[in-house]
């Protein structure tokens, strides 16, 4: 028989076992294939913008694709995370897992990591399709442009112009931030699900927080600075705005692609700070999720 051995307080191996199993569980849910398919359809559909100039075509293609990526990663994050705990509780697999020497923190981390892996797979797939579509369109436009009779230097300039309006390196940080925003939403949803009574409740609360989070900067700016024109809001309103600014994340800070598509550059320092903020939210939400989960009666 086993002699009592020293227990490893923190084991990446266990977290990985739970994470990879969670990924497998999520990938097996067919509803998410439909969502990916839908994303692919939308990206494909922006091919049919042929009556417009190439700048317009590419801009619409990028806007629609990145918009679809944002909404799908977000939906995936919320829907997938909301059902993880309820499913494990309902199937009693949670009991069998926690009856093993698995600290609850590791369980929470493993589940979150599983969702983050799923989101990474999803956004990588979508980015790949997006790049392929964009590249194919670029080649078509380049071929059309090359057929035009023009002096060689003007033609070269025109071709360079086409290339400049397709993929630009600033899209990469933009897509990373889309991922991070979805990851923050996943951590938030996991936190809610540790005390929620049903996954519907979890989803609703998470969606509401998402929308309020986009209005948060308005509240924050009113709170930090007095109203423009010197008018002071009522004390009640002031407290309310302060609470919104305090509790909710500023999701606007994670919307960079809209401006990147139209040519904004992302300075490295700004990217790192934005990413840092996202990681901060993920850590703090995970910590609070753990606090609730550690004291949860199963």
């Amino acid at each position, binding site marked *: 028989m086993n002699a*009592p051995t020293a227990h490893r307080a923190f084991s990446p191996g266990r977290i990985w076992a739970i994470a990879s199993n969670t990924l497998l569980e999520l990938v097996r849910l067919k509803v998410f294939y439909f969502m990916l398919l839908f994303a692919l359809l939308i990206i494909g559909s922006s091919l049919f913008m042929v009556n417009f100039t190439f700048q317009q075509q590419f801009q619409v293609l990028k806007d629609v694709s990145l918009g679809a990526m944002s909404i799908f990663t977000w939906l995936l994050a919320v829907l997938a995370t909301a059902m993880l705990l309820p499913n494990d509780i309902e199937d009693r697999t949670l009991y*069998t897992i926690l009856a093993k020497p698995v600290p609850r923190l590791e369980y929470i981390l493993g589940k979150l990591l599983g969702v983050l892996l799923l989101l990474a797979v999803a956004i990588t797939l979508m980015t790949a399709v997006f790049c392929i579509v964009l590249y194919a369109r670029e080649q078509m436009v380049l071929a059309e442009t090359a057929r035009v009779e023009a002096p060689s230097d003007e033609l070269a300039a025109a071709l360079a112009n086409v290339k400049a309006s397709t993929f630009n390196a600033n899209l990469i940080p933009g897509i990373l931030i889309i991922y991070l925003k979805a990851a923050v939403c996943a951590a938030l949803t996991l936190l809610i699900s540790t005390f929620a009574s049903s996954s519907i409740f979890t989803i609703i609360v998470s969606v509401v927080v998402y929308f309020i989070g986009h209005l948060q900067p308005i509240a924050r700016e009113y709170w930090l600075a007095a109203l423009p024109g010197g008018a002071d809001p009522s004390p009640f309103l002031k407290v309310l705005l302060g609470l919104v600014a305090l509790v909710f994340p500023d999701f606007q800070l994670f919307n960079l692609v809209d401006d990147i598509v139209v040519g904004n550059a992302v300075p490295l320092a700004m990217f790192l700070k934005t990413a840092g903020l996202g990681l901060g939210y993920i850590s703090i939400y995970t910590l609070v999720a753990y606090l609730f989960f550690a004291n949860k009666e199963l």
Partner: protein
Amino acid sequence: MSAPAISIRNLTKVFPIPFKRESVVAVKELSLEVESGQVYGLLGPNGSGKSTTMKIVLGLVAPSSGSTEIFGRDSRRVESREDVGFLPENPYFYKYLTGTETLDFYGKLCGLGGKKRRERTRELLSLVGLENAADRRIGGYSKGMLQRIGLAQALVQEPRLLVLDEPTAGVDPAGSREIRDLILDFKMRGITVLLCSHLLGQVQEICDRVGILHRGVLVREGRLEELISIGNQTELILENASPDVLAEVEQVIARGHGRVVEKRKPQTTLERYFLKVTGGEE
């Protein structure tokens, strides 16, 4: 002397009812010990506090007061789970995993290394008789197979204690018999078993000791035969005894101031009969 497999001291668990001032007392001042090597039956009707007690022992629920230990380690500590395997009532495992993958997953959770894990998985699958279903998805398992893979996962890290919650609920008689035999087999190997059940016939067959919970209170506790034997009676079962012999026996009994309370043909149990006609008996 080694620590008992389970030791419960003055355990009380109160569940508050949300939005109400009242609360439910699920377990009240419960104390009991399960000695190492025993098969202990915890009995009681639904809602008597069996499940709560079990969950507290496993650290799934925190006690309101009192404490529980597994081989001397407090249930609230993660390490205490190294020595216990748990089979919940009506367990489902991840449907998309095969039997092998399921055991592999639980082996990883227990920190077993690759080679050891594979060996252990194979060993357990053969122990519970699922070698032929090892590579089938759990989604296609029957109730009895689920229960057996559940037992195997509970044993994956070779714990010294098994906690089984209604291990035969919903399983057909043949499967039920197999599980019973497995439990006896574990006992032979020195594994302590805490069995929660309301199927008294089964408990009677395999348990050394039982505790009866009623409304959160331990109302009776002790060795099974002591609890249920009727002190001044003896049962004789005779074979090929002629009526003359029987008459003589009765005379002998009367001479010793004894009394024949009942005379009847012994019957097999319906379970044994069922197993015999369906070929389940060895």
